[in-house]
């Protein structure tokens, strides 16, 4: 429909918010001189940081920039501590598609020839016109990202190449449970219609064979932080009230009075609600278990008609 394109101005970073949380090795010295000479790495979102930690193990010191599940990553601005993390990092993984525009700005502010940057959008060969930036929900994304991380880490520290390769193999095999669950879900529930408040999990939904009945305009408006039109709100309300959708995928991380009202409609109409997140909920999850939990929550919603309001 709209040619408004991929670079929604919502991501023009509007408010400063940074909680940098060290994932992986604790000890938390900053940057290049991290404990034991570990490779300083940054994941713009904590799901990418988590995969870096899984591949790099004890040879990397990973920092996640966006990791607070009660903050909207779309309205995020950098602090000086983040700028410092980025300046000192040898390896960076960022999403691209304007989702973490500030990373590109920080990188150009502190140029380094030895730093390796994995931009997931470019890694997957996606054009700037790709309208849904939540790439990590696509089951094929993380395996490709993990391979790129392994390759870059081996270039940075060739003496540990075998270690990284072994961790990549372990990561890939750990994804088998998720792959099997998705295939199983698809076989049973393919073609079922669901609704969403934002395009957060849309890639996962289509991998599961689900049909998202929500108008794209509505999803994009909520994502961009502008008010959806009353027509679209009414259309979505009818979808839920008339039980033409089997579940409502509710962005629990980014809410507004409109999405809260839809959630209330779903509750009063006994349409199960499934909480989805922009970044990885903490603690206790890694990327694989987070995605698996989302698939299980959707299964639970479709089969038992029960809601999952919070991932724990």
């Amino acid at each position: 429909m709209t040619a408004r394109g991929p670079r929604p101005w919502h991501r023009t970073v509007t408010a400063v918010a940074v909680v940098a949380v060290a994932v992986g090795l604790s000890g938390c010295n900053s940057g290049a001189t991290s404990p034991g000479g570990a490779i300083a790495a940054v994941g713009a979102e904590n799901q990418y940081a988590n995969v870096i930690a899984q591949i790099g193990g004890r040879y990397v010191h990973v920092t996640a920039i966006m990791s607070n599940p009660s903050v909207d990553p779309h309205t995020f601005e950098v602090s000086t501590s983040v700028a410092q993390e980025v300046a000192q990092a040898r390896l960076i993984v960022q999403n691209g598609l304007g989702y973490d525009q500030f990373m590109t700005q920080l990188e150009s502010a502190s140029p380094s020839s030895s730093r390796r940057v994995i931009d997931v959008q470019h890694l997957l060969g996606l054009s700037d016109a790709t309208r849904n930036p939540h790439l990590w929900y696509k089951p094929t994304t993380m395996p490709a990202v993990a391979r790129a991380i392994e390759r870059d880490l081996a270039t940075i520290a060739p003496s540990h190449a075998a270690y990284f390769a072994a961790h990549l193999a372990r990561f890939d095999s750990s994804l088998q449970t998720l792959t099997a669950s998705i295939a199983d879900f698809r076989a049973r529930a393919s073609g079922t219609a669901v609704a969403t408040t934002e395009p957060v999990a849309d890639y996962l939904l289509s991998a599961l064979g689900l049909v998202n009945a929500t108008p794209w305009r509505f999803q994009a408006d909520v994502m961009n932080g502008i008010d959806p039109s009353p027509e679209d709100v009414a259309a979505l309300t009818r979808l839920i009230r008339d039980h033409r959708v089997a579940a409502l995928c509710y962005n629990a991380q980014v809410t507004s009075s409109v999405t809260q009202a839809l959630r209330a409609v779903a509750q009063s109409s006994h349409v199960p609600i499934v909480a989805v997140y922009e970044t990885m909920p903490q603690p206790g999850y890694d990327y694989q278990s987070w995605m698996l939990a989302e698939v299980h929550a959707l299964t639970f919603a479709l089969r038992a008609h029960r809601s999952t309001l919070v991932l724990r």
Partner: protein
Amino acid sequence: MTWLFEPGWWANGTVRTALLVGFIVAVTSAVVGTFTVMRGQSFAGHALTDVATAGGAGAFLAGVAPLVGFVGGGVLGAVAMDTIGVQRVKGRDIATGVVLGAAMGVAALFLFLSARTSSATGTTQLVLFGSIFTVSPSTLPDVAWMSAAVLVTLAVVARPLLLSSLSVELAAARGVRLRVVGVVFIVVLAVAVGMSAIVIGAILSTALLIGPPASALRVARRVGTSVALAAGLGVLATGIGVLFAYDSYYWFPSHRGLPVSFFVVAVIVAEYVVASVARRRTRSTLVAAIEPEGWT
């Protein structure tokens, strides 16, 4: 009429809430705004919108309803302005300016903090430019009783207020307690500003407060007529604003609607232009009375 009222207009709950809240606020703003223009306090009214901005942003931070924040912030600002001497005409602009600057700084801080700590999206848009289509129906009773309180208060102080608005010396000679009247009015003004922030945003709420009364005062010959006319113009602007915003969904193939605030303000400006043209024909005595005061 289908060309004017696009499909679903009459059955849409969002539209109904927006219209009800909008009309109540428009009438209240028109009444309060008439006195504001006559007293030459438009700038104070604008400063209060900035304080209301801070209140609205603070409401998101504290997790309370935006209306509470807008109105609460405005009333606090009114008290602050009174304390640092908004009553003395000479220091009025300075006191107002100081409060305005401080309020915007606090608003910037609150918007920053709420982006860092809360999951709410679209906060800046709602606070600054309004989101009448996202107002919850449960806000309606609050809007109604606040309006009633404002109108009753104004009715009680109407005579001394009017007298002190037209001539401070005359009012003082008649024994009007200027200070009390002034404080009561600025608090009432703060509540009205906070309420109109719900409709068109804090930054634009002056437009709804000052625009219709300014137009009405240009053509009406009596205060009563002017208040009624201002209320009508405000309701008209709000109604057309909501209608056009709803209809604009059908104007473009992309089905991207335009915001209510834009249409409301556009209609208010159009009304003012028309009123100014009409005024050339019938020179209003009211305008002659207030014009020497000058308004920003």
